């Protein structure tokens, strides 16, 4: 059943390099994956691992350096301006910072209507219909009607993030990149937004690419999870596979570092050497080797390909593959 579902998004050899004074930074380096319709693919990693850049490259908010992104079979990376504007109706994004991602000079209704006007969904004469639609969307995301004419600065973070979601929904997309949508919110609000996103996914058959640094959140939401380190995918699998049988040493370290909210379960943290660096002027070899406790000679010299170790559980580690 699961396997029969169509793949809505395919990403092939996606790369995004930046020129910095220090050299070439490979923020996203040869990423391959696909998402099935209605699925949530969680992307986890620490700051600077390229997870946000990945999301934005897929939507071409950042121009990818090379590689292809297929959405429902159409190659997004090859689209011209007009086609790209069309496809934006289907592919949307929810941003991390609800304080920064809304134009402070617009009211709630203007913010929600802007995408519809830009995409020409409603004509000038259809003002009333558009207003009706706006209220509908507001209700859908749990924004009270009386807020239509307020400005974002008058609202709290949770409500602002609801506006952000409403904006994404205004175009009735099929696929949404969620770029850390709850990390700026307080715990109690975070849960409200997460539930809302799950409800919307069910009712609108949405597909999510959910980017976060929070492993608990990603486990709660995702059908599959991808772990990134310095621009590359190091492991991918279902939450079950990843949380009960993590294979990559980085995944293991990451999982062991989560403080469990239970005083009876004591953490057995896996020590890592050093700190995360930036992927600048990368040479061949596993990018995690410098910090890995089990690194061997081969890890420092040769790139490690991503291998399916069974049931679509992928891992990129020389040690695992040698076994």
């Amino acid at each position, binding site marked *: 059943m699961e396997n029969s579902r169509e793949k809505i998004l395919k990403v092939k050899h996606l790369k995004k390099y930046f020129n910095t004074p220090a050299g070439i930074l490979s923020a996203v380096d040869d990423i391959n994956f696909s998402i099935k319709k209605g699925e949530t693919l969680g992307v986890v990693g620490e*700051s600077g691992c390229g997870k946000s850049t990945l999301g934005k490259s897929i939507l071409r908010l950042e121009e990818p350096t090379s590689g292809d992104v297929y959405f429902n079979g159409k190659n997004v990376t090859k689209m011209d301006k007009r086609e790209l504007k069309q496809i934006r109706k289907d592919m949307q994004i929810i941003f991390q910072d609800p304080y920064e991602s809304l134009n402070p000079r617009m009211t709630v209704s203007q913010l929600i209507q802007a995408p519809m006007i830009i995409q020409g969904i409603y004509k000038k004469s259809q003002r009333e219909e558009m207003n009706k639609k706006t209220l509908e969307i507001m209700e859908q995301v749990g924004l009270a009607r009386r807020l239509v004419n307020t400005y974002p600065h008058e609202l709290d973070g949770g409500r602002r993030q609801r506006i952000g979601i409403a904006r994404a929904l205004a175009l009735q997309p099929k696929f949404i990149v969620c770029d850390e949508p709850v990390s700026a919110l307080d715990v109690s609000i975070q849960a409200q937004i997460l539930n809302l996103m799950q409800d919307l996914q069910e009712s609108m058959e949405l597909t999510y690419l959910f980017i976060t640094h929070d492993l608990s959140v990603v486990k*709660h939401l995702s059908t599959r999870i991808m772990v990134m380190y310095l621009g590359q995918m190091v492991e991918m699998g279902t939450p079950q596979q990843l949380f009960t049988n993590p294979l990559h040493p980085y995944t293991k370290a990451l999982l062991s570092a989560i403080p469990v909210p239970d005083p009876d379960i004591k953490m057995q943290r896996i020590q*890592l050497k050093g700190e*995360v660096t930036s992927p600048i002027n990368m040479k061949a070899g596993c990018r995690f080797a410098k910090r890995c406790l089990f690194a061997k000679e081969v890890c420092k010299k040769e790139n490690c390909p991503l291998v399916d170790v069974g049931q679509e559980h992928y891992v990129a580690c020389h040690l695992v593959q040698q076994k």
Partner: protein
Amino acid sequence: MAFLEINKINIDYVTEDGVVEAVNDIDLSLKEGESLGLVGETGAGKTTLAKCIMRILPERTARINSGEIFYKGTDLLKLEPEKMREIRGSEIAMIFQDPMTALNPVLTVGEQIAEAVQNHQKVDDAEAMKKAEEMLELVGIPAARSSEYPHQFSGGMRQRVVIAIALACNPKLLIADEPTTALDVTIQAQVLEMIQKLRTQMKSSLILITHDLGLVAQNCESVAVIYAGEIVEYGTVHDIFKDMKHPYTVGLFTSIPKINEDVKRLTPIPGNTPDPVHLPKGCKFCTRCAYATEKCQNEHPELYQSSEGHFVRCFLKGQGGEKYGKQ
């Protein structure tokens, strides 16, 4: 006399929009060597309380209306400024939330640690710098980097420097205000482990301020849950995590997805934190509480003792228990 005892502390901020009641009659006590977790969301008053203990609240806007803070029997709030200065850094030290802004950008990290030493010990510059380098080594930074400036360090490294500053004079009480919130998960774990290791070596007490229940479970012996400037529940880490009483505490737990259990949907706390300029008259949580009665809306609940050392500010959960007060 307790090591640290806070009695009925009440702090306001005077702002343009009105008076913000940041901390409302907080009582707390801490034993020597104990680690206490202060849990709450943004704006709950955690940082205000910490800065009040240090007496570094902004003078012009913050107003301490009432209360006492006894540290080893002396009321810190009544101390001469010079005496208080001597206590800061040597007896009580603080680690701040954002390592990117907590260090002076124009001084080397060595100079900043050495200053902490020289504030409390009569040593010459060379000796202070030697001590600074020792501290750097202690927090895992090579001594050779003491002549570098903060911008040359990563976030995690900067937080280590902040910790080195705080621990330079072996303080007896360490207040850590969200010390790892700005850091990545793996770095977060490293930094907290180090704080714990060093403070146990130095036999210091710890107040850990955080919104992360996981950190509290892993690092604290007792816990105070703060909501809208009030303690709503207080007890040992077992009381709070295994036998939680207050609806807010329960809400916090059901709001977070847990790594070791699966739920289909989270159960969030409805609504928003109340506007601190217009707090509800009765129980401050009544606007978001599923069990709130008319009494909750009109009367303000006291802290009730539900079991030995476990206190709850709730009419429904605390009733029948002993009323909390001066024993």
